[in-house]
């Protein structure tokens, strides 16, 4: 196949993922409503309780809702990454993944394009969320909305790769829901999404340390700085490293025959 042919194939994979997203309106609604509930209910409750000092990247004091936004963006992407992986397990069991894997394309490229397709869906969800948040008066600098885009692509790929790695370890679709509960909620709560790390440290050094090593924290902080048009090189490096390692492990561990073996169809 030529480079053009590879491009056509990649475009088709992205197109199919987008089409699937369009067909699943409830997926889009839940992706939008979930962070909004957090923003409105949680933000209203904690606004008066939690005092936030001036800290980078914020130029001045910010309300708790503004502090929460990057964490909620990361939550959207984490959920989407896990859902994309869930769809890969589903596709593996239902067979459409087999069609993709018997196409004359390198397997790592197929998985990378699948990740990118899922990430683009999450970017769309994030900007829809930011638009609604802006309607509630929660806005970022205009330039930040632009600098956020490449950061979203990278963090989306990272979450997708983590999900793909998880999907390569589960045998059946039913097991994946359990894995998600053990990943999504701990990742979200033991991070800087809801509270700054120093706030955690006031109560427990151990929890603060867990938050510091949690890759979700790195993604949240990278997004926080990007939304304010500021580069945080340390977080960028950490996100890149986590993406590279998890993607390589996911490609290595991906076994398209798993669904066949599990269902006993491999007669």
């Amino acid at each position, binding site marked *: 196949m030529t480079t053009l042919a590879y491009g056509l194939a990649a475009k*088709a994979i992205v197109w199919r993922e987008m089409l699937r997203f369009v*067909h699943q309106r409830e997926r889009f609604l839940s992706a939008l409503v979930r962070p909004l509930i957090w923003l409105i209910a949680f933000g209203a409750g904690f606004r008066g309780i939690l005092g936030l000092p001036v800290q980078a990247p914020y130029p001045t004091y910010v309300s708790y809702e503004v502090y929460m936004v990057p964490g909620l963006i990361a939550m959207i992407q984490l959920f989407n990454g896990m859902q994309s992986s869930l769809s890969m397990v589903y596709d593996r069991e239902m067979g459409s993944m087999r069609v993709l894997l018997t196409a004359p394309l390198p397997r790592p490229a197929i998985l990378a394009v699948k990740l990118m397709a899922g990430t683009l869906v999450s970017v769309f969800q994030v900007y829809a969320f930011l638009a609604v948040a802006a309607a509630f008066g929660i806005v970022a600098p205009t330039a930040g909305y632009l600098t956020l885009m490449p950061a979203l692509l990278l963090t989306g790929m990272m979450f997708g790769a983590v999900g793909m790695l998880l999907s390569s370890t589960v045998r059946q679709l039913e097991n994946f829901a359990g894995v998600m509960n053990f990943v999504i909620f701990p990742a979200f709560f033991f991070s800087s999404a809801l509270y700054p790390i120093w706030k955690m440290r006031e109560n427990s050094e151990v929890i603060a340390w867990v938050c510091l090593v949690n890759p979700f924290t790195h993604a949240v902080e990278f997004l926080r700085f990007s939304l304010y048009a500021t580069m945080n090189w340390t977080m960028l490096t950490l996100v890149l490293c986590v993406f590279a390692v998890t993607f390589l492990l996911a490609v290595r561990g991906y076994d398209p025959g798993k669904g066949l073996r599990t269902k006993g169809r491999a007669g």
Partner: protein
Amino acid sequence: MREKPVSGPTQPLAAPPETAAAPPPTPALEVDAVSFAYRSRKVLDTLSFRVERGRFTALLGPNGAGKTTLFALVTRLFDSPEGVICIMGKDPRRDGAAALGPLGVVFQSETLDLDLTVRQNLHYFAALHGLRAREATARIEAELAAVDMAEKIDVRVRDLNGGHRRRVEIARALLHGPDLLLLDEPTVGLDVPSRRAIVERVHALARDRNVGVLWTTHLIDEVDPGDALIVLHKGRIVADGQAADVVRASGQDTLAAAFDALTAAEETGR
């Protein structure tokens, strides 16, 4: 300085070489000494066979014989740890994705996207094989017409019956002009007229387009006497030849009786 005389075609310096025999055509599929085990349970034991282009080869075996495992190995859903599998002379493990180019596949389970229309499904597949939109459109129309599905092109797959979905899957598998077509029990769950139509269509494909066909089945009536036949039982090949010859060699009158005898002999032989 005189140049050496150049010998012309009428004055050969040496006797002309004997006419070299044409090399045998590359088989569409060659399986050589392939074995496979799920953990300690061996499901395929040193399989070797060929599927020639232009021939309909039936892979017949009871449930659990190892047909689907073999299918998964050929399509690289599993990697074969032992033996060699070549598609049009290329080993997918060595030549990578390129070896899968000449391969068309119809899986046992449905693999069409139910929420997409027939047109969208086929365009998606065509793009995966690098076909440009205009060429893809022409081929989609031609292949759908060939399976009498042209009028269903804008119908969502969810709204098609089982027989129609199978026809669309066959049309899809042929879009990129494969040299080898693999079909894993493609008539499971279909009524008799649909089954008959698909069997006839695939026979015609092998004959008219010089496609090598490997058709796995456990339904004996899908095999014609002139087809190449491989009988698989408990992971081993117990017969390989033209269907009529296999029947004759078994000393039976019908393929059904020959199949029973072959598999029963294998049972008692163990």
